[in-house]
């Protein structure tokens, strides 16, 4: 019989206001095996934890039940408390009487009664708990960063700085990501390329960093410290080791009509191309969708002009499998499509552009060489209308994204300011719902746009844009002025909402990392563990976790790197001891469990057993690798004889909980 201590937490008034904590402690004190029961204002506080520790020692407790907030909150805290007091940490069970009781019920007697039942279930479980000891598994001291944008670059550099090898997998031919397409950055207005390209060079020159560009993750196996990742390196039909990046092929290629994705289709490139001058690796890539040689076997101009002999039309996709200890997701974002927003005439007029397209139109390396010209006729625009929150803050579903995209207010202020600065003869209108500027020097920046540069900020929204006679008729509301505005604009710029990159969802499935409904990766804890995924060994960097601007992305990238460094600097990891355990005496060796194990943690051995009458029987029995087993329990149900059980969530424990609840 266990000697169980019950500790009922008030959580201030969070629990105590709706649950009679004293009564709960008194009721649970009567349960068989309970030798001590008390209540306290904040069990998770130092004083509360001391109380638990003292009780363990004083009453010789062998099991502890804490009636408090969700185990997802403080299970670890209380396990540590008990461990300090000399009790095995797995002899602790939490009854969740806050999230699952006090916060959802209003009637005190009802909530109190339920709290008692939840406590009883936890007591019933603790009776069957067994001390568990965590095993260890080795750590592969190499990290994988998925995504080569500023987030991935910063994370990789920081990890490499600490001395650990890092691979960056980038799906595009070059690293750099969205930041390479941005002209200037807020609120300092320094040139994005000037701060990014040196970092890209650092990456390419760092011996610890291996860039696997034009590649995608294909398969992920294993677990924290021991991932095995298969990467598909797509054929670029150019031998990376030979190509010098001279660019001659990209000038001679006869196929000139390929939309240039780097400039968002605002101009064209060749079928063989280097995305931009500072690309890393600076290697040409043949676009198989447009190359006539690859499509019809006719042409071969690039091969003829290439002095290095780097062109290889026969190149195949290459599968690379490598071992990693940690994986960082840095898949970033992309602007949402504008096809659902007919009212802004994006599809009808080339002069309606997204903000990212405007970046290209203002960039010296862009299609217009940095002069702001209307895409329709190449003339200088005089009236520009910026529309904020296009597809952000919507009701969800068809309308758009329910969240605020966070960066639009600031880059719109930047655009407005830059245009007014460079072309003082233009009128710039910004239609906003709210201007959100929480950040260092952000509001000052916005005020400067209004006060120094005379940007017209109008509280209201554009309802309709109609192309007419070379102009864009903008109908909008001016809520503070109490009027409907009609503006004849030359260009309309849409602050399109941003969403996670499309590759994130399948990647999350491969990584078994969870995502929210918007496809942003979920963090292990929204406040306390913001750069870790709930899946151990998977870390989050940049906008894949939520909308972020560059400084935030870089900060988070560094934070993710430090977490990775922390992991890789360990020689071995403590495993989750709540793993499956076969009872060899009951095991049939039928392989049912092996069939359903998602981790390949189960193998079989032929083992001698003592049979009846001094005989020896050789039987095939299952073995679980505790370092690989993640404790899902799929095998326990697949096993017909019940030989497979899950430590910490055993059949008997769960049934005891059921009994306690139903009695």
């Amino acid at each position, binding site marked *: 019989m266990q000697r169980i201590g019950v500790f009922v937490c008030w959580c201030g008034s969070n629990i105590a206001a709706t649950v009679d904590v004293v009564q709960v402690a008194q009721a649970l004190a009567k349960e068989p095996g309970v030798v001590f029961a008390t209540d306290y204002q904040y069990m998770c506080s130092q004083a509360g934890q001391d109380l638990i520790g003292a009780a363990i020692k004083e009453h010789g407790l062998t099991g502890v039940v804490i009636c408090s907030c969700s185990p997802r909150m403080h299970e670890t805290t209380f396990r540590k408390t008990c461990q300090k007091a000399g009790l095995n940490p797995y002899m602790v069970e939490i009854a969740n009487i806050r999230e699952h009781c006090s916060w959802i019920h209003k009637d005190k007697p009802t909530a109190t009664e339920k709290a008692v039942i939840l406590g009883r279930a936890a007591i019933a479980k603790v009776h069957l708990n067994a001390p568990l000891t965590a095993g260890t598994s080795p750590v592969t001291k190499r990290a994988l960063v998925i995504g080569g944008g500023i987030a991935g670059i910063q994370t990789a550099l920081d990890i490499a700085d600490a001395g650990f090898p890092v691979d960056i997998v980038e799906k595009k031919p070059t690293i750099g990501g969205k930041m390479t397409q941005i002209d200037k950055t807020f609120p300092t207005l320094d040139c994005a390329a000037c701060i990014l390209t040196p970092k890209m060079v650092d990456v390419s020159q760092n011996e610890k960093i291996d860039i696997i560009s034009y590649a995608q993750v294909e398969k992920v196996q294993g677990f924290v410290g021991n991932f095995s990742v298969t990467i598909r390196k797509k054929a670029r039909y150019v031998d990376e080791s030979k190509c010098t990046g001279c660019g001659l092929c990209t000038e001679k290629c006869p196929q000139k009509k390929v939309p240039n994705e780097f400039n968002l289709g605002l101009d064209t490139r060749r079928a063989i191309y280097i995305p931009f001058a500072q690309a890393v690796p600076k290697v040409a890539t043949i676009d198989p969708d447009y190359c006539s040689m690859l499509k019809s076997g006719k042409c071969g101009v690039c091969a003829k002009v290439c002095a290095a002999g780097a062109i290889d039309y026969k190149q195949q996709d290459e599968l690379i499998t490598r071992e990693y200890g940690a994986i960082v997701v840095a898949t970033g974002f992309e602007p949402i499509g504008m096809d659902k927003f007919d*009212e802004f005439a994006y599809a009808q007029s080339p002069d309606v552009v997204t903000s990212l397209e405007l970046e290209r139109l203002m960039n010296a390396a862009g299609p217009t060489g940095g002069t702001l010209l209307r895409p329709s006729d190449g003339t200088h625009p005089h009236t520009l209308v910026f529309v904020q929150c296009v597809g952000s803050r919507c*009701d969800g579903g068809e*309308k758009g994204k329910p969240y605020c995209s966070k960066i639009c207010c600031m880059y719109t202020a930047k655009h407005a300011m830059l245009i007014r600065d460079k072309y003082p003869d233009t009128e710039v209108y910004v239609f906003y*719902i709210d201007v959100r500027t929480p950040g260092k020097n952000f509001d000052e920046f916005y005020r400067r746009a209004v006060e120094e540069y005379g940007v017209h900020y109008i509280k*209201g929204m*554009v*309802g309709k844009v109609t192309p007419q006679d070379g102009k864009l008729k903008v109908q909008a*509301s001016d809520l503070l002025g109490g009027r409907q505005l009609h503006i004849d604009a030359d260009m309309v710029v849409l602050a399109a909402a941003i969403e996670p990159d499309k590759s994130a969802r399948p990647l999350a499935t491969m990584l078994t990392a969870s995502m929210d409904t918007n496809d942003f990766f979920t963090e292990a804890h929204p406040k306390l563990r913001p750069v870790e995924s709930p899946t151990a060994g998977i870390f989050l960097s940049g906008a894949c976790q939520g909308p972020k601007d560059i400084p935030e992305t870089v900060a988070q990238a560094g934070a993710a790197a430090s977490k990775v460094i922390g992991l890789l600097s360990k020689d071995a990891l403590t495993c989750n001891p709540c793993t499956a355990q076969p009872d060899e005496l009951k095991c049939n060796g039928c392989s049912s469990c092996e069939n359903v194990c998602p981790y390949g943690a189960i193998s079989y051995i032929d083992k001698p057993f003592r049979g009846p009458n001094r005989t020896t029987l050789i039987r095939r029995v299952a073995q679980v690798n505790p370092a690989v087993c993640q404790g899902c329990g799929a095998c326990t149900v697949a096993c017909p004889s019940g030989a497979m059980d899950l430590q910490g969530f055993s059949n008997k424990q769960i049934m005891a909980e059921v009994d306690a609840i139903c009695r």
Partner: protein
Amino acid sequence: MSQWTDTIRQISGVDPRKCMKCGKCTATCPAYDHMEYHPHQFVDMVTTGRVEELMASKGIYTCLTCFACVERCPRSVEPAAIIEAVRLAVIRQQGGNHMTPDQIPGLLDEELPQQAITSALRKYSKGG
């Protein structure tokens, strides 16, 4: 808070508190110039409980019910549905039957489809 606020919510089936005051409804409204109150104001007045004021305004009848605001509203607030609910509230407020069956024979005429009068009776009588 007006006694009507809940009625409007009930009839329209929309929650005006979802409004984030972007003004896109007003920006999109083709009848803007003829209105005393504008779509975003309908919503705001219901939210803040100024329903009687709205009900007293002839402006509510200038809404064409074109549903442009409903279509464009990023928050699914549906100002047109709200204003229609306000109009119905006005009818309810008038109490009793605005139209009774015995009035129907007098209203019949060659040009008007009989169906229209029956519909009007349904709409403008409490018992219906």
